[in-house]
């Protein structure tokens, strides 16, 4: 890869004024990628801290899982879970994404929801979806291993990939296959025989009233051979995945694609995997390194990713420092192709250009039109952000446009935001 002097230098800290400028534009880029968007004040804070301290600030803040600004949303979620009300659960999550003081915690929660993509269309339980969501929120910035173990035993996952009917005799391969292909190693890093044997190791894994247990009568007690090693328990299969070099590489590469750039050379993938292993597969530590890196601030990274519907909606709300009807905002995301808690398949949502079709782009424009209506519109958006200066902030943080200020007749920040949101440029971030 020629654009960084070497693969190693891609991950080295970005030095303001040596590697490139450090202005509000770079700080806005960091705010966009880390938290989908931010207020002008937060962008100024990031700029004042500099890249290293800003990365530390955002990651450590998120790791504290501060819920002070989202207490109400969390209690809505708990009640929705009890009432099996998935729509309110979704609204509560959009609320959390929009209002969390440190948005990275929620952004990672969404990242893992997409990675371990589980849909309520089959699970049919808001309580189980919420419990799984809580795993992603609580463990999503910690070490990858414990989270993978937790997800394997998570009741929503047990239901989703049929572990809950997997029994000795002729085991069900569904979970074993996706554990390898999508959750830990990537396609082709295992054989069909590994899948069959691993499936045997997961026999008898059940959820009993939302709690994991092993049904001894359904369990295959025999020895199994996975990746050439002899094991007997499902937990050992998960550990074997975690030990493989491919796992660190696969997860690190996915984080790179989510936060830095869409393309990834084999050399860089290797280097990222090694770095992720170096930090003990600690997601937060790895991200902190990424967020302060030369690659992260390179010209190739800037506005080089497509905004997901969540990034578009949450980015707009956060940048406007707005409050609104989160149920309607969640529904708008669904119309744009991202219905939270209902990913289209176990592979999650296709990203990049796949987000954009004639139908979803039309929905994005309808979203912008509703944003323009502010409090009068479907989203009932309100903000205390001052009109003064907001236009240039929104130009900078929502799209790569020249700052040409508020247009005539744009009396509200919402009208300005809408004008930017419907441009081709604002679909990139």
């Amino acid at each position, binding site marked *: 890869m020629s654009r960084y002097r070497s693969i190693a230098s891609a991950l080295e800290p970005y030095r303001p004024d040596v590697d490139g400028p450090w202005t509000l534009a770079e700080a806005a880029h960091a705010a966009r990628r880390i938290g989908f968007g931010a207020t002008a004040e937060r962008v100024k804070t990031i700029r004042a801290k500099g890249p290293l301290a800003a990365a530390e600030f955002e990651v450590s803040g998120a790791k504290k899982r501060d819920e002070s600004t989202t207490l109400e949303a969390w209690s809505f979620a708990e009640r929705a879970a009890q009432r099996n009300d998935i729509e309110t659960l979704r609204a509560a999550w959009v609320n959390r994404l929009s209002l969390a003081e440190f948005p990275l915690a929620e952004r990672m929660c969404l990242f893992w929801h997409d990675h371990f993509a589980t849909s309520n269309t089959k699970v049919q339980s808001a309580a189980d979806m919420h419990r799984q969501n809580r795993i992603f929120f609580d463990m999503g910035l910690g070490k990858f291993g414990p989270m993978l173990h937790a997800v394997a035993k998570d009741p929503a996952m047990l239901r989703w*990939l*049929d572990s809950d*009917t*997997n*029994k*000795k*005799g*002729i*085991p*069900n*391969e*569904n979970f074993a*296959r996706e554990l390898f*292909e999508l959750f830990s190693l990537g*396609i*082709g890093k295992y054989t*069909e025989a590994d899948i069959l044997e691993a499936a045997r190791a997961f026999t008898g894994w059940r959820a009993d009233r939302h709690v994991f247990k092993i049904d001894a009568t359904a369990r295959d007690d025999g020895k199994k051979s996975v990746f050439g090693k002899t094991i007997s328990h499902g937990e050992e299969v998960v550990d074997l995945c975690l030990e493989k070099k491919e796992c660190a590489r696969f997860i690190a590469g996915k984080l790179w694609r989510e936060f830095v750039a869409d393309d990834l050379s084999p050399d860089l993938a290797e280097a990222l995997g090694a770095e992720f292993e170096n930090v003990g597969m600690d997601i937060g530590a790895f991200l902190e390194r990424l967020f302060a890196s030369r690659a992260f601030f390179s*010209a*190739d990274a*800037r*506005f*080089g990713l*497509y905004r997901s519907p969540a990034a578009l909606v949450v980015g707009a709300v956060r940048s406007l420092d707005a409050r609104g009807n989160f149920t309607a905002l969640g529904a708008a995301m669904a119309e744009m*192709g991202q219905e939270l808690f209902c990913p*289209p*398949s*176990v*592979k999650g949502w*296709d990203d990049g*250009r*796949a*987000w*954009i*079709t*004639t*139908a*979803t*782009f*039309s*929905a994005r*424009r*309808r979203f912008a039109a509703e944003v323009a209506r502010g409090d009068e519109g479907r989203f009932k958006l309100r903000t205390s952000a001052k009109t003064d200066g907001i236009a240039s902030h929104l130009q900078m943080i929502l799209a*790569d*446009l*020249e700052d*040409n200020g508020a247009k005539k007749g744009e009396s509200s920040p919402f009208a300005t935001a809408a004008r*930017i949101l*419907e*441009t*081709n*440029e604002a*679909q*990139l971030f």
Partner: protein
Amino acid sequence: MTTNRRDFLRLSAAVGLSLGTDPTRLFSDAIPRRDSKKRALVLLELNGGQDGLNTVIPVESATYYDRRKKIAIRKESAIKFADDVYVAPELAALEPAWKNGRMAILENVGYPKPDRSHFRSMDIWQSAETEDTTRRTGWLGRFARNERERKNDGDRPLFFIGAGPTPVSLTGGPGSPVVLPHLSALGSFSPSESSPPRRKTVEKRKADLEFLEAQSRAMQKIAGATKAIAARKPAAPYPPTELGERFSLIAGLIACGFSDGIFQVKLDGFDTHAGQKDTLPVLQTTYAKAVAAFLADLEASGLLGNVLVVAFSEFGRRVAENGSAGTDHGAAGPMFLFGEKIVPGRLNGACRMEPLLDGDLAPNVDFRNVYVAVLEQWFGETSARKIVLAPSDSSIRLVK
């Protein structure tokens, strides 16, 4: 069935995947000239891996009944389309299509070294590329591009009638496909009148900005036709399902100016790992009724001769059921074709149950040869083999 067809069946059962000389070539005469601008293609994607064995039932196979103690469909419960063709009872709605010679079945369709990943295998089917290339384009997108370069008389319109990303099959064409989950999805689209704002990084993101702009142009393509389509009354009733509505929309598009369109439509849910007796029949009923209504609507509208429907899935399922009364990922599976101009019936005989490939049905027809046949015989495409890169020159006669 003619003697020749019988020979075809017998021979094709013996040829396997990669014969250099193929006996079926006897039946593929010179490609007839067609007015391909009045020919539409509908690709029905059965997503998740359709269980072909519980769809067209191998009632004479002891292996089938032996390995599927819980979920096999007994001969007496199946519907008899012909002496040697039994199908799941949920396919009842397709019986008229079969009896009228408007349905064809191809068994054991697949490709060498079958991949059992949903996502990889679906990519392989839709791109017609079995190599692992990162930038795949679709077989129909490439066909449309080739056709434009060759004929230079406008783009063939590509549609995905559904929600979600553009399917791989339709990518790589000229312009952008129209994605339409329902008729009102594009709203009252009108191109932006204000001058575009100045950009800072035009050069760097040029390709992306062009891609985004192409979406607007694609939306404009159908803006003029939406009123006529909304006003159209189908000539036969559709089932009240999402798939039924989508087939109705396709008929509307064909009737209102897109008679040369390529349409993809998809039904999800075929990944029946557990309790498939509860799930698969619902899906079968859904597509059987939707396709039957579509054929009836087109026939009554005088359009049936212009339309070919091809149904496919990313793989079939394992012959043996699993302990969850479901089936895991398999290899080969059946394809179905519908239309007035197709060669009807069972094109390559009963499903070959032996020899199995790791417990799965072995492919003996390469799907890429089916694609070549569709492009050559339906659209009169002369360089189909370059577009699809079929593995051998064996031909299958699909269109009369």
